[in-house]
């Protein structure tokens, strides 16, 4: 007779025991984060915006691109013939403002995540290499960073997008490629201190190759500050995305964007105040949520970090 196989419960228990130091650390971190009420509030705001963006077609009964010239520039709370209410009113083409704001979260978040992924990865790699190897490589990358910082960024972005033509990929790549500096600097300064620590020296003494030391021993220790920078950078990217759409250089109509709606609303500022007011509030609330969360994350993970 074969011995009975360990039950699923026992296996899970064993796994848990194995993973517990790491998990306990994470739990402690989450508990500390949860104690910061503002950070938690920020996270909730971001989560709500995210859920609304993903579930946009199910959240609102209105089609954000459906025009109805008969009911243009209706004030907030106005109802159409069928009795359906435009909670935030309609725009100059009779489109429901609330639906457009909800759908407008999509390009904002999409550009935010994608651009942060690009610049974050780029900055991480350059910062690791720069800090670990130092010398000539470091000089070149840091001078490159100075040059990058010497540019009025938004001007460069509109120039490049103006030449290439505005489209989602162009916007993402332009913002992504030009935002790596903060990541690289933070990661680099972290690496500078990590590479002098005993465990890295021990790895050297054991004959490990540089690439392996970087990936296995240095990289994991830089992820905390990296995450803080990425969170706060996301807020900046969303503002830039809406600024570009405000200038007509973002995702093109008929896709609703917060910046584009603001630009439309600006024309009707003296007759329909709600057109420019609500999309701006949407940007403000989203960015504020991310900033609150980012600040809390920074204070919880690494209070000394100045970003």
């Amino acid at each position, binding site marked *: 007779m074969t011995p009975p196989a360990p039950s699923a419960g026992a296996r899970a228990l064993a796994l848990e025991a194995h993973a517990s130091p790491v998990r306990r650390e994470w739990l402690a971190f989450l508990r500390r984060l949860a104690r910061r009420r503002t950070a938690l509030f920020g996270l909730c705001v971001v989560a709500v915006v995210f859920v609304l963006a993903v579930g946009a077609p199910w959240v609102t009964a209105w089609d954000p691109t459906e025009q109805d010239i008969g009911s243009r520039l209706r004030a907030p709370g106005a109802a159409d013939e069928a009795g359906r209410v435009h909670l935030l009113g309609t725009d100059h083409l009779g489109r429901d403002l609330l639906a457009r704001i909800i759908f407008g979260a999509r390009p904002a978040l999409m550009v935010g995540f994608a651009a942060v992924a690009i610049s974050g990865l780029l900055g991480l790699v350059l910062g690791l290499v720069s800090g670990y190897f130092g010398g000539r490589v470091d000089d070149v990358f840091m*001078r*490159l960073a*100075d*040059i990058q*910082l*010497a*540019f*009025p*960024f*938004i*001007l*460069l972005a*509109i*120039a*490049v997008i*103006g*030449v*290439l033509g505005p489209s989602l990929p162009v916007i993402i790549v332009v913002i992504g490629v030009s935002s790596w500096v903060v990541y690289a600097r933070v990661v680099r300064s972290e690496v500078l201190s990590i590479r002098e620590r005993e465990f890295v020296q021990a790895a050297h003494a054991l004959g490990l190759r540089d690439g392996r030391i970087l990936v296995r021993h240095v990289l994991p220790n830089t992820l905390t500050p990296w995450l803080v920078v990425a969170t706060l950078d996301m*807020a900046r990217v969303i*503002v830039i995305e*809406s*600024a570009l759409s*405000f*200038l*007509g*250089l973002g995702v093109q109509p008929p896709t609703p964007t917060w*910046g584009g709606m*603001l630009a439309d*609303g*600006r024309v009707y*500022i*003296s007759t329909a*105040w709600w057109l*420019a*007011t609500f*999309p*701006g509030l949407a*940007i*403000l609330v989203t*960015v*504020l949520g991310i*900033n*609150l969360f980012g*600040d809390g994350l920074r204070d919880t993970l690494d209070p000394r970090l*100045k970003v």
Partner: protein
Amino acid sequence: MSAYLLRRLAQSLLVLLGVSFVVFFILHLTGDPALVLLSPDATAQDIQEFRETMGFNDPFLVQYGRFLGGALRGDFGRSVRHDEPAFALVAERLPATLELAGAALLIALALAIPAGIVSAVRRNSAVDYVSTVLALLGQSMPTFWLGIMLILVFSVWLHLLPSSGRGTLEHLILPAVTLGLFTTARITRLTRSGMLEVLNQDYIRTARAKGVAGPPVVWKHALKNAAIPIVTIVGIELGTLLGGSVITETIFAWPGVGRLSVQAIYNRDYPVVQAAVFLLSTTFVLVNLVVDMLYTYLDPRIRFR
């Protein structure tokens, strides 16, 4: 002049060289600058001739060398739209932009430094909470929205201030507040955290123990040390302000470099775009050089590095 400043000067020149390369490269992004500069209905022969006269058939580095030579003499070619030298067109608008950015910076410093100091000195007081919340809001608010809301309240509803144009002090108020808000928020938070850090240092405790009390400790001992990160950020914020002028000037129809470059992009007037990006970047680099010189005064340790 110390070795540090010499090195810093060389570095600035290097940065400007990089700037010039990127500005030059903008036109070559699509692969063919002739197609970017000419109207879409140009014939194949037009394009060929244009390439020849502009020297677009030369090797890349030769073209860059020519561009750099021109840029050093302030020659970026002629504006396609206005038929004037592009650089003159941009230089003409620079004072307006500097006026706006300068006013915004003044507002920011005048509000942020006292707010930051009071917040730090009276930590966790009502003043501290209000200023912290306002700073956080200011940092999260898109400038273009603030600009539109200010127009809505002060121009459309209250009829107090003009919503566009340049001329009197009244014209300057709304754009300068709009442009300065983000910087105000940033500097407030930085001043607060910088002061908090310094106020906990041993030398402040020593000063207090020796009987120096109240305001002199804050002003003479703490602020000079807390000023170092503030001065750095002022240099960087000026870049933000110069870049931000693009949007603020567009909203308020302020006749500066920012608005000109947005219009130039809409009109595909690239010599003007190149001249504008180059001029604003150069301004920024020079300001940061000055900031670094100030730095050596505030923090003598740097001179010996």
